[in-house]
């Protein structure tokens, strides 16, 4: 069984986001980049576990980005996987990204495509399901447990108020979240091996983006906090009504 893991580069959560060009772009100078945690901690590590237990034969990584994303994909290779592909394009349009990845995935004959449930920069949470559609494969999102037996994937997923367990025939695309695996730290052996693992760069077929980012807005500054005594529910309700205006 061949697994393809989709890796996205995102700003570190502690990085201060600075906007530029009249709030139409993010100033990437000084930004620390990391692997999207959902991709790294859950999708990639679960793929490696499936390889380690003999369920999967190959784990390949794919990312969409220009040359500056290579340190991040190499860090993913330090965790594991035999090879990686960088699709040489710059996109933050989910459909465009999905089309790039689906085109590559088709050519590679993958049985299982693992993605994070969303990337923590744009939080669209839609690339995975679009890849599935383009591959004409099943999709299971919000996975908390992923098992594969023969041609069948058994996936537990979070639903409103509980969880359900689904099965699907391969090929399948699964979007992973907490519970699928435990985060790992790259070890020295992996880091040193990452240097020599193949990192192919491919130029995708031209695909137009269907969305365009008009402008960015930073979240409003944190407002002051009012403490209300736990015994004084009336005061709390009053404040929620008159000040926060949520009731």
């Amino acid at each position, binding site marked *: 069984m061949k697994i393809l893991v989709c890796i996205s580069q995102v700003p570190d959560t502690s990085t201060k986001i600075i906007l530029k060009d009249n709030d139409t772009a993010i100033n990437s100078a000084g930004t620390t980049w990391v692997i999207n945690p959902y991709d790294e901690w859950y999708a990639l590590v679960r793929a490696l576990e499936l390889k380690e237990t003999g369920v999967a034969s190959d784990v390949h990584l794919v990312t969409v980005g220009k040359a500056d994303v290579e340190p991040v994909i*190499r860090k993913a290779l330090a965790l594991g996987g035999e090879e990686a592909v960088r699709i040489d394009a710059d996109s933050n349009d989910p459909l465009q990204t999905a089309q790039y990845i689906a085109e590559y995935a088709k050519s590679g004959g993958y049985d299982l495509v693992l993605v994070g449930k969303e990337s923590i920069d744009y939080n669209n949470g839609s690339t995975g399901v679009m890849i599935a559609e383009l591959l004409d494969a099943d999709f299971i999102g919000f996975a908390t447990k992923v098992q594969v037996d023969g041609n069948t994937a058994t996936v537990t997923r979070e639903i409103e108020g509980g969880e359900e367990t689904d099965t699907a025939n391969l090929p399948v695309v699964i979007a992973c979240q907490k519970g699928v695996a435990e985060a790992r*730290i*790259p070890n*020295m052996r992996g*880091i040193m091996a990452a240097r020599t693992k193949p990192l192919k760069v491919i130029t995708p077929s031209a695909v137009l983006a269907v969305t365009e980012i008009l402008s960015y807005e930073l979240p409003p500054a944190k407002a002051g906090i009012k403490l209300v005594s736990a015994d004084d529910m009336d005061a709390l309700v009053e404040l929620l009504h008159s000040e926060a205006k949520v009731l």
Partner: protein
Amino acid sequence: MSLSKASFAELSQVRKEGKLTDILTNIPPILPFLDGALPSTFTKHYKTKTGPFCLSRKFLVKPIAIDMNATENASAIKGGEFLIRDTPADSIFIPEEWNEEQLMIAQTCTEFLAQNVAPILDRIDQQEEGLMQHLMEQAGELGLLGISVPEEYGGFGKDFKTSMLVAEKLGAGNSFSVAFSAHTGIGTLPILYYGNDEQKAKYIPKLASGEWKGAYCLTEPGAGSDANSGRSRAKLSEDGKHYIINGQKMWITNAGFADVFTVFAKIDDDENLSAFIVEKGFEGLSLNPEEHKMGIKGSSTRQVFFNDCKVPVENLLSERGNGFKIAVNILNLGRIKLGGATLGAGKQIINFSVNYANEREQFGRPISKYGAIRYKLAEQVIKVYASESAIYRASQNMEEATEHMIAEGMDPIKAKLKGTEQYAIEAAIIKVDASETLDYVVDEGVQIYGGMGYSAEAPMDRAYRDSRINRIFEGTNEINRMLTVDMMLKRAMKGELNLMGPAEKVAKELMSIPDFGASEDETLFSKEKKYISGFKKAVLMVAGAAVQKLMMQLGKEQEVLMNLADMLIQLYVAESLQLRVEKLVAMKGEEASALQLDIMRVFINDAAEKIHKAGKEALNSFAEGDERRMMMMGLRRFTKTEDINTTAARRNIAAKVIEENKYPF
């Protein structure tokens, strides 16, 4: 110059006081000053291997006249040469040059601390049974215990700078950092560097993987700084198969869980120590309970007793009598590694400090808005950034010297030891500077936290207590200050370091009319380079005068030695910082390096004052009359800097720390 009866008696007295003073009294007055007199011979005292007496003998010293300028474009700068030669900025390594793989390794260390160590610091400090061993094993699984161990012994054979980066990143791990440093440094390196093939094959792979933990037994209740005076003894058994060790060792880091101890003891009545590899299970080894310490409470520290402890003869490390050499060489490495560890701790404390200053509000505003707090944040960053510049400059020097010797055909391990020894002066300087920098940073960290800084619930309490040991172990900062001066002068005495030419030039300059003209070329760094050149002259002048005036007494004038060491430390760190910023500007441009330029200007401004103060104290203690007045004028001239607005510069630096809410570089 022969040895008089009086000085022979004096020397015997000094010998009783300890080795270091003994070495220092042997410094001949070779540094010419004012009259430029140069003795053609000097007397060297030395001990025979078998006897306790000092002998004297005449050596011919050929004055090597090297022009300071003539050597400028020559070979790479040697250890200690920073005092007399200028280093090109592009030849140094700066932390802005870490490669992708090194950054990944650093990230692994940071993640390891965040996930495995930081959440359980209290449990670690309570010395929960088995916890530290488990952490060491986890670090071993990640490969962090074998970074610089050759691949043939199960390690990763990484270069020295990378191992320094690991020391730095794990240095933020409080007691874990101490256990890690002891294991990978003094616990592993004596066997790796001095063991024979069988010893290395038996012990190193298990130490590199973390299956076995290492400790190092040198210090004894009566033998601390004066390590060679230890009373532990080893005797060959009647059947010649074992050494029987008897003795008591104390302050042994990792003792509680170590499997392998490198133990120093004298065989029979030897003059010098020998070293032995002792396994935990060997008969006759026992441990005292854990010591109760001020800080690093999670680090295991115990006394180790050897009662007729039977050690197989094949576990003698290196040759008989080689122990002191092993101890000294391992300490050279330990000192710079300690610099790395304190650097990592310092950056973490800055992060804590600025987080708190940004959150804590008083009088309606976060305290980071107040100038008094901003000053502290800026100064923490300035000191750490400067210290870091020196640490990695010296690390690179050690690495390059090692590589050079390997390329010339030297055995890699021998080359590593030689390369490190070559920069032992810099290692001692870094040990002092980095540990004192961390103490400053934690002290101000407590202050920024205010009342909470004094509470055991905030991180400053532990950080403050844990920091303090760094000024004590790996040679106290006082011993390291004396060593800095001692090694410098010894190298001059051996003709390895030409202090004479430059000192003569300074003496001449002192007699000449000062140059009040503006410097020819006003470039970005021309002022700072002139200041640093002045600092060098100040050190050469005061050291030269001290050697000439005090002669054989210099070793006893420890206050003067401290002054000279302080001058050397300020000079080395200031120069390293200036070179780093110069290289950075070449890489990234002036605008992108504006804050680093501020850091450099403030640090050099303050270094000038400190060098002036230390020089003044020294001169006032031994010089008199016109000579004193002339040197004082020279000192003022050599440490003169133009006035700058340090408040504005510190505000710029603080603004960046506050904005990023962390150490910003």
